[in-house]
């Protein structure tokens, strides 16, 4: 049942510290190999860039930990941001209200996902695959696949900073920390972990499994919307490509960060930060290194593979434990 087992100590160390080690080495490599990588300006830039990804990956991480998957996050981000931008452009809605519209829309879309998964009992992958196309379709229709630029004053918000830090970094950090607290220190968060461990056991214990899953999707949708808002602010407009591929990035971040796709396991803060940082480092580093911009995808894909292999190795040992546990 197990894939080939390397010596126990090596694999134990690798599986626990593998990714941080790799990340650290990659970071060092780029710092040394290029001139501008290890500068405050660049690091600030990287953090700025990462912010939407962090927000969305954090939301995705929570869904994954409940044992489900949401690949509609990119489309939710797109549609929510579109609604907000259109509201501002066509109806003169003010920015704060528009923000609320985006968040509400995201929550609603998340609720649709939740309803399909919980009430229609459709596999989460397929359900969110379906809503992914649907939501994107609606957004493209509404925006006519064109650019929806933000009003002048709002656009300036995109580069607002509080002291040395960009606002969106602060937002992302706040979201990440808050979500981590929710995960570790609230009843909801613990119930999510319980459901991720085993829906059957959680249900036997009296945990309202369906409600937990539903609320999780709603939260994910709202946060995806927030991520969409951040991206829009950075770009200055809603483009037809907003969020495209974002869902895969989010899942990649989650996987590379070490959260198991089986659910019930993982440290949100650490994993999302690690995963996002990994991809951002690779991207920026390759950029500065002068490598072909498309090599990023190649490397990214390879990284996911490696992470999966590491997870499979880990599972080889831990997975058995879980089974044994269930048989008492």
């Amino acid at each position: 049942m197990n894939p080939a087992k390397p010596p126990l100590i090596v694999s134990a160390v690798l599986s626990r510290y593998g990714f941080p080690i790799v990340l650290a080495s990659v970071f060092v490599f780029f710092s040394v190999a290029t001139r501008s990588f290890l500068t405050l300006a660049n690091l600030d830039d990287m953090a700025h860039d990462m912010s939407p990804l962090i927000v969305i990956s954090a939301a995705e991480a929570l869904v994954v930990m409940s044992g489900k998957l949401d690949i509609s996050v990119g489309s939710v981000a797109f549609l929510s941001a579109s609604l907000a931008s259109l509201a501002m452009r066509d109806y003169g809605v003010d920015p704060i209200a528009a923000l609320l519209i985006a968040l509400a829309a995201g929550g609603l879309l998340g609720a649709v996902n939740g309803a399909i998964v919980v009430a229609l009992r459709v596999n989460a992958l397929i359900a969110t695959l379906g809503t992914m196309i649907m939501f994107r379709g609606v957004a493209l229709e509404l925006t006519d696949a064109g650019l929806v630029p933000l009003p002048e004053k709002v656009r300036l918000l995109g580069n607002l900073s509080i002291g040395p830090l960009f606002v969106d970094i602060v937002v992302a950090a706040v979201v990440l920390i808050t979500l981590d607290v929710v995960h570790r220190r609230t009843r909801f968060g613990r119930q999510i972990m319980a459901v991720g461990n085993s829906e059957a056991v959680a249900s036997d214990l009296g945990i309202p499994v369906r409600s937990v899953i539903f609320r999780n999707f709603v939260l994910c949708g709202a946060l995806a919307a927030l991520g969409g808002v951040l991206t829009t602010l950075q770009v200055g407009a809603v483009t037809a490509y907003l969020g495209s591929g974002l869902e895969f990035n989010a899942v990649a971040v989650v996987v590379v960060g070490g959260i198991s796709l089986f659910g019930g396991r993982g440290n949100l803060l650490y994993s999302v930060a690690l995963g996002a940082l990994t991809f951002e480092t690779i991207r920026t580093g390759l950029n500065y290194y002068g490598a072909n911009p498309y090599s990023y995808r190649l490397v990214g894909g390879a990284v996911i593979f490696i992470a999966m292999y590491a997870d499979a190795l880990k599972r080889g040992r831990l997975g058995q434990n879980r089974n044994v546990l269930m048989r008492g």
Partner: protein
Amino acid sequence: MIRTWTLLRMNGLLKSHPSAVPLPDAALDGRGGDVGAPSLSRIVDARLIASALVFSLVLGLLAAFAPSFFRLNNLVNILVQTSTLAILAIGMSFVMIGGGIDLSMPANMAMSAVLGALYMRVGHDPVTGSAIMIVSGATIGALNGVAVAYLRMIPFVVTLATMTVAKGACIWLTNSVSIAGLPESFGDVLLARPLGIPVAVLATIALTLLASTALSFTVIGRWLYAIGVNERAARVARVPIERVTAMSYVAAGLSAGVTAVLLAARLDSASANMGNDGVVLDIVSACVVGGISIYGGIGRAYGAVLGALFITIVSNGLNLMGVSFYLSLIVKGIVIIGYVALDGLSGKAP
């Protein structure tokens, strides 16, 4: 692949842990049916009715608003268009019957087409070029197969990673430019219409027959169904699970390779754009509509083809009726969710 854990079986499809209330053995002394085992006819009925309804609706609307649809020329074109999706759906059906999924097929197709085209641009030999495309497809499929079957990785993520890598490599190789300059003979042969039937359609028919034969009349085919239905029982029944599963992914890869050949001929070029994100959706939809269960163990090759036909016609029909492309996306989303919901509601979900 730890069957109970292929991604299609998680995220809502987890075979639920043995509930705390096992049926007493005495209850096994059933006379007649099992509690809860779906009769095949029930599932077929629900889907068939849904498909028939939607299909008639679309045809009706077409007859009313876009009768040009039914011109022979157009119909033939529809068939050619369908062939791409149909062949991909056939490949996907192998994987889905075994209980997995392959998201990398369109990217695989693009990559294989690009590799073959790059060769043909220089080497001028369409036969070798086609062979390269097909071998490339099978190789990427094998990569997926080994990772899922032997390394026990999750199909969703493995094929996601493969897709990312293939797309990236594709863009890199082509520099985002279409590869043109393919030898004329390439297009001449593949776009021919012997007896009025395009080669693409003939190929589809041939592959459907091949796939059906493989699934219904070969040992591996039966083994694949067994794995999709009940992996534990398959293991006891001496089915070589790893080998069969890996091969299902190779089959998917092969179909991607064949599609690459046909599509490159049709477009007279190859580009990284050949397999965009939307195609995966269409493939899954085609299979789902065609009666192939995402939970595994059920479905036929010709179902996938019929599903592809359905999807293509509905897409085209919507297009002709002036429904914007984007709205048609909404319809597609509803279709896929609806069919899988029907799947689940008729008791097939574990």
